[in-house]
């Protein structure tokens, strides 16, 4: 018997064991005290009916309304471990990069649900996995189906239409063309843009976010510039957007044809239960 097959067999055994174990623990008891450090998953938890199980959230959580009264236990960079432990959770939703926190949780026997940022399909996979893990598999499945249908409907609406070459901007210094951050050719927002019937002018850049120079924008000549203004303060997000600095780039088709669209609201960039709405919003901007 070769080493490789031995290893494969052991791995297979381990995997089977893990599946069995998690299945029994799931059947045995769904977590009743969940702490979520990932805001978009908090929102998903509430959408699938796991809201009553959530006992604490991260310092950046604002959605839905119900989280505003829950205790805060830090966030990605500064999780408050003492606070987390004192709340006696049976499941903590963590970021993939929070290695130390996960080690500490493991030592105290607290389960962790690992969130990894990815593309649009990853978001739906995560949603389903979260449902299974929290005992809301059916609700999560329904939610995911609804989102898939919503996305499919948007795709159908824009099918066959010319897909405008689009620059999706999510950061820019106010009143100027400095510090422009746009969506590159990978990740969740890029997938959303393509689903909404746009063609990302930065599709060839294998980064999630790109700082673009005015030269690149002039050279790529987008037909639509879609600008998302987010931030955490909803009142500020509604402030009148200023697109006048773009006029300096007169040869860009989007500027010539006045196709500078500003969408406000941080929810537009969250890979959570409102992603279907967000894609629909993008698509009405791109295909009015």
């Amino acid at each position, binding site marked *: 018997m070769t080493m490789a097959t031995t290893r494969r067999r052991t791995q297979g055994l381990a995997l089977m064991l893990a599946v069995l174990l998690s299945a029994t623990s799931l059947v045995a008891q769904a977590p009743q005290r969940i702490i979520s450090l990932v805001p978009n998953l908090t929102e998903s938890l509430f959408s699938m009916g796991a809201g009553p199980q959530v006992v604490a959230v991260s310092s950046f959580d604002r959605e839905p309304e119900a989280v505003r009264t829950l205790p805060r236990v830090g966030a990605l960079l500064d999780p408050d471990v003492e606070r987390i432990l004192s709340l006696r959770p049976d499941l903590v939703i963590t970021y993939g990069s929070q290695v130390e926190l996960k080690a500490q949780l493991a030592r105290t026997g607290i389960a962790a649900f690992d969130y990894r940022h990815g593309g649009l399909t990853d978001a739906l996979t995560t949603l389903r996995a979260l449902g299974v893990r929290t005992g809301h598999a059916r609700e999560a499945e329904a939610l995911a189906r609804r989102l898939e249908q919503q996305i499919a409907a948007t795709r159908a609406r824009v099918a066959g239409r010319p897909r405008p070459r689009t620059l999706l901007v999510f950061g820019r210094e106010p009143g100027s063309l400095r510090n422009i951050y746009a969506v590159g050719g990978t990740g969740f927002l890029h997938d959303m843009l393509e689903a909404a019937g746009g063609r990302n002018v930065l599709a060839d850049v294998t980064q999630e976010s790109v700082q673009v*120079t005015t030269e690149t924008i002039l050279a790529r000549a987008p037909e639509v510039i879609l600008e998302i203004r987010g931030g955490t303060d909803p009142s500020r997000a509604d402030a009148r957007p200023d697109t006048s600095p773009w006029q300096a780039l007169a040869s860009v088709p989007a500027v010539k044809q006045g196709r500078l669209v500003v969408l406000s609201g941080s929810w537009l960039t969250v890979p959570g239960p409102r992603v279907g709405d967000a894609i629909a919003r993008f698509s009405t901007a791109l295909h009015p």
Partner: protein
Amino acid sequence: MMVRQRLPLVLAVSSLATLATIVWAPTVGSTPISLARVFDPAIDWASNVDAQIFFVARLPRVLAGALVGAALAAAGVVLQALLRNPLATPFTLGVSSGAALGAMLATAFHLEATLLGISAVPLASFTGAMLATAIVYGLAASQRRGLSTNVLLLAGVTLNAFFSALILFVQYFADMTDALRAVRWLMGDLDVGTLAPLAGALPLLLLAAAAMAVLPRALNLLTMGDEVAASRGVDVHRAQRLAFLSASLATGAAVSLGGPVGFIGIIVPHLVRLIVGADHRLVLPASTLLGAAFLVLCDVVARTLLAPVEVPVGIITAVIGGPFFLWLLVRHA
């Protein structure tokens, strides 16, 4: 050769080198453009992509690089003479972290006011730079016996640590994207978009240049120490005040334009001294001119190396400047 004969020669050579760089730089970039199309009056402006890349994307950026490079190199020369320390730079004194704190606060509080075409972030960083200089100068002046080098350098180190802590504190509470934006600003960014920010910084730079114009001979004498300079007929307090004011004006204006680009103030003056000697009447103008050329060249690398992704220009200057600084340290030790 007498200084009278060397001065025109040094000025002519460095002006030519700088001018050539500034003329050449806008013709290169991530996108190939045709100069014939750029200057073809038959093509309508709104549809002349080449002309817009040249005049909108590249020219303001090259000019910003020239102004920032010139200002930082000149400020470096003045501060080195003032502190009698060839390792002093605008950034040894905590001015960069002062600027950084200003930028960070502006992004954290989403200040959107503009003044003279400069938007809030650079404006706040300029205020921070001036504040840091004022604190260092105030500390040194309170010593009554003039400006002690040790006090100044230590104050600079302390201020750097203090401002850095405040920056981390602000960053800790900032939004992810805002923090990212501020961090990016700290790496230096010359893509100004329009000429308006240049026009906003120009008055400050001209003021700094006027103050520096009367300084060079006094700077020569100040490098021998305050009392020797005074006994040779220098009004030491006036010269020191002018030097401090002009250096912080230049640094503040430069940081407001391009962020705290590091190491220009040490690389350029040292290379210039190797060529023309230590006389500040030659070193100051030559460093100012060649500082412009140096940063413009670094920025050409920054915008073409990984295009369309941009390398922050501060990283380019740091990659060159870091080892250079260490080499100087070893050489002086």
